């Protein structure tokens, strides 16, 4: 066997062992380890933000800065694509 094949076999077995152990020690579905924050948002989102949709209230109110960064990432991607393809087009 080649050296590359042996190296790839060792690498994939290590990754596979990690994946199997990760699957074995997974939490049961619906039982997070630290449910206090989820319960706080579920209890208070209607009174504090007025929104019925808890996900939107988290995305745009509790975690507004994250959405700002996401919008900046999208803006940068669009600007980069337009710059590159306009240059090819001329």
């Amino acid at each position, binding site marked *: 066997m080649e050296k590359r094949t042996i190296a790839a076999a060792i690498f994939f077995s290590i990754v596979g062992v990690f994946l199997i152990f990760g699957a074995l020690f997974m939490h049961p579905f619906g039982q997070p380890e630290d449910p206090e924050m989820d319960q706080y948002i579920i209890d208070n989102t209607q009174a504090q*933000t*007025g929104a019925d949709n808890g*996900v939107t*209230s988290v995305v745009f*109110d509790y975690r507004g800065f994250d959405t*700002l960064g996401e919008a900046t990432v999208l*803006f940068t991607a669009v600007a980069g694509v337009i710059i590159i393809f306009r240059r090819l087009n001329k």
Partner: protein
Amino acid sequence: MMGMSKIVKTITSIALPLTLIYGLYVIAHGHITPGGGFQGGAVVASGLAMLVVAYGSVWTMNKIKEKHLSVLESVGAIGFIGLAFLGLIFGTWFFNNFLLGNKFLFGGIGEGLSNISTAGVLPLMNFAVGLKVIAGLFAIVLVMAYSTSKKEGIFK
């Protein structure tokens, strides 16, 4: 003749308004039902990408310039950040929900799936982000398709 066959164009003309209505519904009801600005914007942008597929990028670029899409995207971004700064001015902190509690517009507290005039500043932010995602994704699709088309692009 640019674009695909007459069958595809007809089906696109029928399906496009429905897709646009559904996407705008998802954006407008983002604070009540599942969805929001990003998801609804992706729906609308994929409907418009169907236009590019059916009619060809050159035809679409003649109708909708990518300059205007850039302007729309910038308007969405400025609206989003401006709403956040309005929270700083009228309220107390950045991203403050300053419209919550007033009597006129979007002031209510949600009590079910019927009342759209709730959640303060969240629907306006949804509209801003939705505008941004529509213009951004459609600009990406349109510019890529146009610059690689046989008539106008790099392979001519």
